[in-house]
């Protein structure tokens, strides 16, 4: 890399976080604060007949739907508002919040919550995709349990299927994944004199919280002030879930007039907060006599859980990603997100794309194996190119550097040589995956819904201050935003200040999601800094605002879901080498290699940190992290039985970046945070398939699953 901007600088938050001076929400003190604990549904699906509340000691309060002010509403405005603040007539999943008990002592709260007696009339829960589709127990949502049902069509799939020499059918599934941000969910709501509410939270989207709290209480958004505390990881798990916590807490703070805090313990966090959507994708692929793909018919289903929250948007990303980096000429896609009586599924790094990408990559590997072709050679036939047509009938507007990246990763990993050396079924395998990830909101979301604004100010004391709502959750913007502005202005990085956002002080530059922080908001920072530079010699404290405008080439029809689903894409290739133990079926990962195109890195070290962390999280999803549901309850509820990767599980990662500046990204940068996760599980699966010479159909690829596949032939 030759870009000056990419040279690493020390992260501004590194030292305070290491030495323990950084204050997370649980490290702060709030005078007179009460704690909250939820009374949760013990049933997956039931009507509430009666709730018997125990006599509460002095200083303890019971808060339920009847405490919501009459101007407000018992709904959480996430994207849809079907999730109630307090379940009052029915419960839809084990963990649904029925009420809060608040008071000074946390041990006492646990005891009081157990003493609340809820009388239920049980209904028959639908827990699996099949049960949801069969409408077990009657529909949970609408008439067909589909929160969303989308169709895409590219080319002439019906015609192409008529020309097929053979049709290959395949089903690929992915499981739940729990975020395991190291800091559990935490929110404090503090009433102010004059009626205003301050909300302090660990999370990604201050303006989402402000919007949800204001809507629940029925007050103007300006009556709610939201401040982000130092956040100990999020990964999507703190995109919408803080709305769920803060709305009920706001009702409690409103009723008691006291600050009320909710600090989840780990068991509660794993058991009841949102997860990655499980998925099942069915393919019918038409091949001609030479083994070329003529067409695909794809049916993708997501298990969305009890409430819709944002599942329709997750589903959009799933279906737009379900051809991965390939230009398949004729494709038909149906995507559905089903309501079930499980904990709601929601955002998790990749936001639906990992499920679509995984299904397609693994299906492509199955096709190559069925045709007796090299996976790489087979996949190469279909690579998207600049100007190529995407699955939503949009175009790729940037140069696709995958051919160059393939050669690069081959040199790094010895992929082609090892493919020859390791014979299929020889207990050694090397797997290969390619993925892309669109930066920013899907379709016209950035210009129609978000309309990001950033502000930059030259202060009288010689510092420059940035105002935006994008948060530091580990991924670096406290360092990278100032770096962008400083580079434009030609001043040292430490002369630019960027603080954790406070909705009373910053404009809404949108949520910290969708790989948009650098690609979209970072670009606004750059453009604002350019304008400020032009006004550098003005007296006083010049302030510049920058508003989002889409690139002129973007074309999108939200009704038809047609056009350019994303303005730009990050691209990635991963190679993983494994050895499978022929006795225990345990997998030892021998090597991990990755090459990414993120445009230009704003900071190579920050990007490498994303690459390393994303790959290991992806390998967790693909190989270790098993979350099973029995009778509507997760079987894994602690970090001892839901295991994430440790420092011993995987070897050092070797990664590289290719340069591919993007015109509308700051210094050419595109998004990176989700792309890096994607493809790791795919390459792992592909490697295991080679090692045991069998097709794998689902993740996690655990030793038990390998044994099952191997021993059943």
């Amino acid at each position, binding site marked *: 890399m030759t870009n000056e901007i990419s040279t*690493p600088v*020390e*992260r501004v*938050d*590194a*030292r*305070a*976080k*290491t*030495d*323990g*001076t*950084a*204050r*997370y929400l*649980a*490290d702060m003190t709030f005078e007179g604060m009460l704690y909250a604990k939820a009374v949760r549904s013990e049933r997956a699906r039931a009507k509430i007949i009666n709730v018997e509340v125990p006599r509460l000691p002095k200083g303890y309060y019971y808060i339920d739907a009847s405490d919501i002010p009459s101007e407000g509403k018992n709904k959480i405005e996430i994207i849809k508002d079907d999730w109630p603040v307090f379940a009052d007539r029915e419960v839809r999943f084990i963990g649904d919040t029925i009420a809060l008990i608040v008071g000074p002592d946390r041990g006492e709260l646990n005891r009081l919550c157990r003493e609340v007696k809820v009388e239920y009339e049980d209904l028959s829960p639908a827990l699996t995709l099949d049960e949801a589709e069969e409408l077990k127990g009657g529909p949970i949502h609408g008439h067909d349990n589909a929160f969303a049902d989308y169709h895409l069509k590219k080319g002439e799939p019906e015609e192409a299927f008529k020309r097929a020499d053979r049709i290959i059918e395949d089903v690929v599934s992915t499981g739940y994944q729990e*975020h*395991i*941000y*190291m*800091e*559990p969910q935490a929110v404090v709501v503090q009433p102010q004199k004059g009626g205003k509410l301050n909300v302090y939270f660990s999370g990604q989207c201050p303006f989402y919280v402000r919007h949800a709290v204001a809507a629940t209480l029925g007050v103007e958004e300006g009556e709610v002030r939201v401040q982000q505390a*130092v*956040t*100990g*990881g*999020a*990964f999507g798990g703190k995109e919408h879930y803080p709305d769920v916590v803060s709305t009920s807490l706001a009702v409690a703070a409103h009723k008691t007039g006291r600050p009320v805090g909710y600090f989840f*313990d*780990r068991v509660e966090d794993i058991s009841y907060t949102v997860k990655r959507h499980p998925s099942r994708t069915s393919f019918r692929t038409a091949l001609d006599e030479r083994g070329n793909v003529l067409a695909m018919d794809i049916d993708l289903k997501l298990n969305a859980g009890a409430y819709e929250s944002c599942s329709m948007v997750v589903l959009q990303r799933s279906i737009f990603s379900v051809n991965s980096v390939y230009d398949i000429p004729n494709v038909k896609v149906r995507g559905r997100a089903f309501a079930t009586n499980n904990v709601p599924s929601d955002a998790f790094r990749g936001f639906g794309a990992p499920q679509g990408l995984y299904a397609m990559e693994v299906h492509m590997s199955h096709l190559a194996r069925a045709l007796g072709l090299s996976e790489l050679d087979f996949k190469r036939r279909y690579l998207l190119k600049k100007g190529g047509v995407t699955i939503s009938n949009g175009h790729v507007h940037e140069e696709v550097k995958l051919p160059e990246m393939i050669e690069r990763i081959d040199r790094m990993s010895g992929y082609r040589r090892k493919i020859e050396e390791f014979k299929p079924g020889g207990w050694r395998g090397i797997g290969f995956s390619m993925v892309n990830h669109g930066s920013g909101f899907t379709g016209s979301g950035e210009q129609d819904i978000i309309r990001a604004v950033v502000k930059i100010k030259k202060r009288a004391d010689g510092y420059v201050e940035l105002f935006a709502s994008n948060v530091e*959750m*580990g*991924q*670096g913007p406290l360092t990278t935003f100032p770096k962008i502005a400083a580079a434009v202005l030609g001043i040292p990085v430490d002369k630019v200040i960027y603080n954790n956002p406070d909705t009373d002080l910053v404009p809404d530059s949108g949520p910290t999601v969708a790989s948009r922080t650098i690609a979209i908001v970072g670009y606004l920072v750059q453009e604002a800094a350019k304008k400020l530079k032009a006004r550098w010699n003005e007296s006083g404290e010049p302030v510049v605002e920058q508003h989002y405008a889409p690139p002129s080439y973007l074309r999108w029809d939200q009704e038809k879901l047609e056009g350019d689903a994303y303005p730009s894409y990050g691209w990635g290739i991963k190679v993983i080498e494994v050895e499978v133990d022929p006795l225990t079926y345990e997998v030892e990962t021998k090597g991990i290699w990755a090459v990414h195109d993120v445009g230009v890195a704003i900071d190579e*070290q*920050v990007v*490498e*940190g994303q690459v*390393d*962390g*994303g*790959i*290991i*999280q992806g390998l967790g999803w693909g190989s270790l992290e098993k979350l099973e549901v029995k009778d509507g309850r997760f079987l894994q509820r*602690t*970090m*001892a039985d839901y295991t*994430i*990767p*440790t*420092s*011993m599980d*995987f070897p*050092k*990662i070797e990664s590289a970046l290719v340069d591919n500046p993007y015109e509308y990204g700051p210094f050419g940068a595109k998004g990176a945070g989700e792309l890096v996760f994607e493809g790791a599980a795919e390459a792992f699966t592909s490697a295991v398939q080679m090692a045991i010479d069998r097709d794998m159909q689902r993740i996690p690829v655990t030793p038990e699953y390998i044994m099952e596949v191997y021993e059943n032939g």
Partner: protein
Amino acid sequence: MAEITFSVNGKSRTIDTNPLRRLLDVLREDLGLTGVKEGCAEGECGACSVLKDGLLVNTCMVPIGICEGSEILTPEGLRETDRGKAIIDAYAETGAVQCGFCTPGMMMASEALLDKNPQPTEAEVREALSGNLCRCTGYDMIIEGVLKAAEGGKGLW
């Protein structure tokens, strides 16, 4: 209730408390040492790591009653030492820190390792940190940080 005398970061402390309370709560709530984080409350994640008489422990699993006469070193104490500073410098240089919630515990685990083994191999560092979970970094840069601290802090351990 019981009176317990122990040393925290070189300072003698006597507290009168329920001996079954977790060391974690005593450090955070009674002594305000919030560099010790609660991540899982079951001894799995290592965010609450401190050194107790030179050994790495998860304070969520230690009742205060067994700390009579113990010497406890928390991130707040370690950061004031040359060893702590060497680890902090190395972490900052190698990009070991992302969300930071595991990081004070990682620093304690690094100190526990380097105290016994001042020039560890990569494999030894991986093993020494395996009780401290991180969800952000994939560990590589933390491991590099420990190796860098060992190199930059030669003679300190």
